């Protein structure tokens, strides 16, 4: 009798849970067009190799630099496996005299001291700016130390978190730093973040942001990552097998290079050499780009799953501890797409906390159109992009041109960020931030 009561209770519990369970969320609509967006063969190569050093604008010989590690007052408890990410780490280069401040936001999944940021920092410091470089809100160090949700990837929420972080950082700058004006810029996803930060400042007035510059920004976040998912599926396939073969191919090439040159290094130049000789086809260059994105996504997915308690790869009742192996988790995460992150982690989390929102409104809020009015009417928003950028399609590029009008520079080369720091890009960037930009002059 007792057993049957227990069984009935369990059955009733299961049924009530099933009834209460939310219907599955549909993934974002498939990105239209090619998986490589506007990119051609040259654009894929430019995206992988970056700006050729000989094309980079003149840089100052030395740039002073200090690092700030901040504990945010609103920080959430830090999970054991993220013990090293308790503080937000940012970098500052101070001018010895009063000067405008340029805040640069990193691209998706990156920290605040990447090579691309170093180039921009040097250029802007050389042009007389104080320079603050901050990580992307999708960088694990930011998610753990600063994010108010732990679930990164929502443009507006990430913008609010970034804004709060910037206010906190500036409040703690050394007193001798005198700021005359504030501009915000960023590359890739950081570009979209920069524009959102300026739009938030328009109502909160804590930073007094003057100009915002987007360098190679996405127009629709979910369409872009959907396209990268597609690229991954095409070039590397599902699961681990494709990635293993790709790694093995690179490994094989490293071994060959070693035999040829009797040199063993795993530095950037050596790997670049290996990549240059190992990657030959467009599919292989695409695979390298898709894999880099997938590795960044793994961190966002893992942190989001852990913080939201979604239970996709992390058991919410038994979260991993310091000595636990994460090799298997990493392997599983390499096979997880952004679409899965959206349906299982991001959308359930935000839909629960935003009572009137739906899947469609969530997708719409992650388009730059969400600040379209400001972009159209405020003359202090600028953009630089390339006509062969793989994160855009023709409609995205047309939207950017129509929305920003004369405040956008479109270059015919570089793919995605493959011309960042070159003479033309730098000269136009400084003109835009200095309020001297004239569309016809490029």
């Amino acid at each position, binding site marked *: 009798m007792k057993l049957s009561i227990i069984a009935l209770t369990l059955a009733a519990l299961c049924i009530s849970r099933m009834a209460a369970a939310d219907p599955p969320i549909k993934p974002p609509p498939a990105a239209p067009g090619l998986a490589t967006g506007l990119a051609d063969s040259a654009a894929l190569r430019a995206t992988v190799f970056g700006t050729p050093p000989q094309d980079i604008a003149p840089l100052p010989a030395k740039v002073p630099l200090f690092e700030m590690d901040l504990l945010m007052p609103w920080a959430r408890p830090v999970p054991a496996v993220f013990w090293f990410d308790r503080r937000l780490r940012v970098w500052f280069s101070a001018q010895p005299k009063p000067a405008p401040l340029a805040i640069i936001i990193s691209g998706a999944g990156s920290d605040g001291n990447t090579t691309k940021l170093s180039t921009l920092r040097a250029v802007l410091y050389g042009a007389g700016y104080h320079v603050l470089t901050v990580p992307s809100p999708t960088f694990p160090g930011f998610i753990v130390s600063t994010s108010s949700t732990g679930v990164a990837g929502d443009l507006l929420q990430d913008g609010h978190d970034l804004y709060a972080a910037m206010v906190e950082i500036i409040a703690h700058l050394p007193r001798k730093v005198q700021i005359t004006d504030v501009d915000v810029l960023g590359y890739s996803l950081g570009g979209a973040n920069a524009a959102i930060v300026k739009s938030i400042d328009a109502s909160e007035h804590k930073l007094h942001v003057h100009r915002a510059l987007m360098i190679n920004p996405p127009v629709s976040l979910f369409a872009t990552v959907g396209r990268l998912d597609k690229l991954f599926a095409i070039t590397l396939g599902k699961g681990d097998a494709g990635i293993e073969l790709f790694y093995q191919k690179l490994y094989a090439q490293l071994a060959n290079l070693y035999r040829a040159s009797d040199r063993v290094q795993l530095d950037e130049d050596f790997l670049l050499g290996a990549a240059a000789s190992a990657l030959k086809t467009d599919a292989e260059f695409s695979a390298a780009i898709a894999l880099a994105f997938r590795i960044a996504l793994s961190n966002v997915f*893992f942190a989001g799953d852990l913080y939201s308690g979604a239970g996709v790869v992390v058991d919410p009742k038994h979260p991993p501890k310091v000595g636990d192996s994460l090799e298997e988790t990493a392997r599983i995460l390499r096979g997880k797409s952004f679409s899965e992150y959206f349906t299982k982690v991001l959308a359930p989390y935000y839909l629960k906390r935003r009572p009137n929102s739906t899947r469609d409104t969530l997708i719409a809020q992650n388009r730059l159109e969400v600040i379209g009015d400001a972009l159209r009417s405020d003359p202090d928003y600028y953009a630089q992009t390339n006509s062969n950028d793989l994160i855009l399609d023709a409609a995205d590029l047309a939207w950017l041109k129509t929305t920003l009008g004369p405040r956008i520079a479109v270059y015919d080369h570089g793919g995605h960020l493959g011309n960042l720091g070159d003479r033309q890009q730098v000269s136009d960037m400084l003109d835009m931030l200095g309020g001297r930009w004239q569309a016809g002059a490029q």
Partner: protein
Amino acid sequence: MKATRWAMRLAPIFLALSGCASQRVIFHSLPPETPAADNAAAIKHIQALMAQAKAAAEGGAKNAKQAEAVEAPVTAAEAPSMTTYDPWGRLNRFTYRFNARFDEAVFLPVANHYRRLPSPLRAGVNNFFSNLTEVGSVINYALQGRLGRGAKSLGRFLINSTIGIGGLIDVAARLQLPRAPTGFAMTLSQWGMHPGPYAVIPFYGPSTLREAIGVAADYGVSYGVNLADLYRGPQSWGLGTLNAVDQRANIDFRYYDTGSPFEYDTISFLYMRKLLIEDAALHPPKERNPSVPAGK
């Protein structure tokens, strides 16, 4: 008494490790970045690569044997497994965390101060310690049966110790005798020993059982030879610390720069592959079973 002395030695480390934990903002002043110099170096590197490519294209037909070696593919079947042989993973992960904390609190700040010294001075220190390792290289090349290379290391040692003022200037490199260090770990590899399990050594970092044996043996040789009485007595502590700081200052790595909880796995993966590449250069790679973890 001895315990008190040790406690006094270790106290600053623990204070540094535990201090700063509650401060809202910590400032680290860093050596200035030198992007102009970096860029110049990158341009030079590209020009050198282009010159090499041009030379290879022109000389390719003449040197068919070398071209064949470069093009001989290592097939997917020969490539090792994606997983690393890491039976001590739990201990290794804790040690990795200890190393990260020690590096952040003690090692890296000291190395950053050291990086501010004039570069000729740092180069001198680096050359001095590099020159000392030539003694071990000579012995190990002999054990590996690579006598030609051993003779080169001996030549480097003699030239740099005399004309190079005790090793402070690398004169031999300018005489077309570039550095090619080797150690007992490489000797073990030459003798056919597998890398063994991945191991993270306190203060030292990523290693394997074979590498750890090699490092210990190399130190044993240095201690035994005790060149110029540098490896015994109180001065050995000072020199050992300077050597460690110099090495750290020359390694462009910071723990958890990735911010990722998977950093340990990435490092072990890359480290093991570096070893396998070195091994592959010594022995022709055999067919490997991809289900056997790399290193086993």
